[in-house]
């Protein structure tokens, strides 16, 4: 399929598939940018905004952030393995990465469930933050709306990433990749690192500031 290259190509040796993923990441980044800037604009128009940690559990999510960074590391290890021709290592590290992603989603869902179920303590904290109700829902003020929209949109990305890794594990187990053929793993890695990177931004904006 690869056509003889055109005379000038500013993108060097990057494969066509990789260029496609870079472009997708750029566009996805613009969507996140739109959400984050929109959220900031709404926040700027509010009289009060909860303090960091007043409602959200910073230490739990900090652990989740650490977990996601670790999966970026295992993703690098996966690519490293196959670049050396180690197919078993590839499968091992991809499985680690995928499990890390699932664990991350588990914690995020646990956090959501806890908020949606509500509690005395949560109600107390909500009142202190100037919000109403005993449950923290998407309809709990602009704060709840922004929180669920942005973390939810990111969560969907982690979910897509997990499915994407699972889809690559199938050919990986069948030995489809080798030391000379690992482009699809590199592309997968690009997406996963992007999702991690965005999370650090989301964590900072939603939880810490």
């Amino acid at each position: 399929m690869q056509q003889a290259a055109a005379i000038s190509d500013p993108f060097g040796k990057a494969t066509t598939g990789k260029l496609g993923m870079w472009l997708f990441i750029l566009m996805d980044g613009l969507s996140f940018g739109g959400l984050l800037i929109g959220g900031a604009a709404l926040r700027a128009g509010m009289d009060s905004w909860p303090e960091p940690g007043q409602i959200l559990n910073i230490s739990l999510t900090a652990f989740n952030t650490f977990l996601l960074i670790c999966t970026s590391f295992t993703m690098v290890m996966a690519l490293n393995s196959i670049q050396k021709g180690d197919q078993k290592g590839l499968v091992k590290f991809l499985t680690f990465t995928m499990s890390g992603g699932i664990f991350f989603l588990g914690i995020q869902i646990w956090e959501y469930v806890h908020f949606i179920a509500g509690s005395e303590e949560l109600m107390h904290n909500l009142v202190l933050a100037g919000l109403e109700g005993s449950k923290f829902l998407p309809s709990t003020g602009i704060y709840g709306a922004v929180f669920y929209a942005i973390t939810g949109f990111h969560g969907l990305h982690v979910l897509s990433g997990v499915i994407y890794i699972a889809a690559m594990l199938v050919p990986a187990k069948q030995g489809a990749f080798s030391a000379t053929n690992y482009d699809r793993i590199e592309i997968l890695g690009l997406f996963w690192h992007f999702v991690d990177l965005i999370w650090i931004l989301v964590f900072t904006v939603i939880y810490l500031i």
Partner: protein
Amino acid sequence: MSTNNESFLTKYIFSTDHKVIGKQFIWLGIFFLFFGGYLSLLMRWQLAYPEQAVPWWLSWGIFFKDAGGIIDPDTYNQLFTMHGTIMIFWAVTPILIGGFGNFVIPLQIGAPDMAFPRLNMISFWTWFLSSVVLLASYLLPQGPAAAGWTSYPPLSSPMGGIPGEGQTLWTLALVLMGTGTIMGAINYIITVVRLRAPGMTYFRMPLTVWGLWLTSIMNAVFVPVIAAGLILLLLDRVLGTEFFVAGGLASGPGGDPLLYQHVFWIFGHPEVYILILPVWGIVSDLLAVFARKPAFGYKVTAICMSTICVLSSIVWGHHMYTTGMSPLLGKAFMFLTLLISIPSSIFFLNWLATLWKGNLHFEPPMIYTMGVVWVFAIGGLTGLYNATVTSDIYLHDTMFVVGHFHFTLAATLVLGLFAAIHYWFPKMFGREINRTMANIHFWVTFVSMNFVFFNMMVLGYAGHHRRLYNPMEFDFLKPLLGLNEWITWFAIINGVIQLLFIFNFVWSMFKGKVAVRNPWGASTLEWTLDAPLPHGNFAQTPTVYSRPHEYSHPSLTDTDWVPQSEPIPGTA
């Protein structure tokens, strides 16, 4: 890549061949073009004969039965909402970008297919799914969306007064459509960057490819932004968030409805260029082909189109002059908007200079192209009144605006896509499209559309507000009833003559004269191939030696053209 044992399913339905996918997009678009056009005729009926029963030949005896054949206000709102939405996103976009983007880009740059053929197929079927979701809203008891194609909150909010879930499906369909657009954009951009044949430098690409490529870049940048905005609107409707709800409608301090308008127009203004860039490109190329001259200022035209893309991303505020924005900001947006007229005028003059002293051949594609030159001039010039704050405050949300954007978006785009269909028809189907029918179709369409859209501007100047259900409820609009009737009848003529087009299209596909390889004497690469084109296109990757339109080159003797894949004699 070409496989010989393709089943019917993989060859015509789930094909990865860019030419088949292009045709699928065109069929989808033509269906919606007729559907959206039909909705506009119903609207026109209400404006000319307010609250009178729709005649049987327009209602087909099946619509509006319970109201005694009368279009009620809610239905009227649905009509203009769905007309706008469908025409922009499901008629013109699929035909120009999905259809011709797919069919033409790989052929004109000498590529075997798109960079990601499977993604291309998924893009079409995502689009198809979005159409199903959109049409499904007609099955809801309270009908489809009715908040206008812009769907401003609070009208589009759940507590905004419009009953039913049509708006929810509308938002969902747009998000899906956006996803399909994004997939297409990735494909077109990377295809142009990566799969150009040897020798096909950026400044040897046909301007059609330039237009489609710039359009895709704009789609890549701005569709994700509107997608984010629509997701928030969807959350407002489904999960009870209050992003765009404020004041008495909100339960607490609430969000900001103006934020939606900003997000919408940050995308919405570039969207008009997204739609029109392919037509600019096609017109620039076709004028050269049928004037038998190189496109005047080829490189300048390409650079002007690129400049407009950049400028178009910072002018969205001109849609919001009446939202109480600071006068200083309004002036800034006005200045930037008016700046766009400079590059636009430059390439428009390039068009005229291409025609100047040309050897004009009035083949069907050329008459449509000349039509575009005329309607785009009117559309562009009347835009200045909307860009200028002082005149826009009077004209805002009147029929003047409707007339203006129908000159640019409806007339220019529709004539442009007719030009494209008539031009590439022989390459698509291996047959010629019938000239007599094409000529009749052009003249009737051209005259009636000019009458309709020009007089809409007259209505607006007289104070007729757009989206009014029954203008006759206002005394000062009563004298305009006669003009409204005239517009409606010309619109009906315009609608009827489109049946001749579809007849010609289908008839010529099967019964048209078998076309020669290069009926127009065009030098771009697609005309070096014989129909039917195989999956994989070029048997041998072509090498490109010249710009796309070196017509009537002085060193040519027997003919006045050579394909781009052959050196011009005496210059190599």
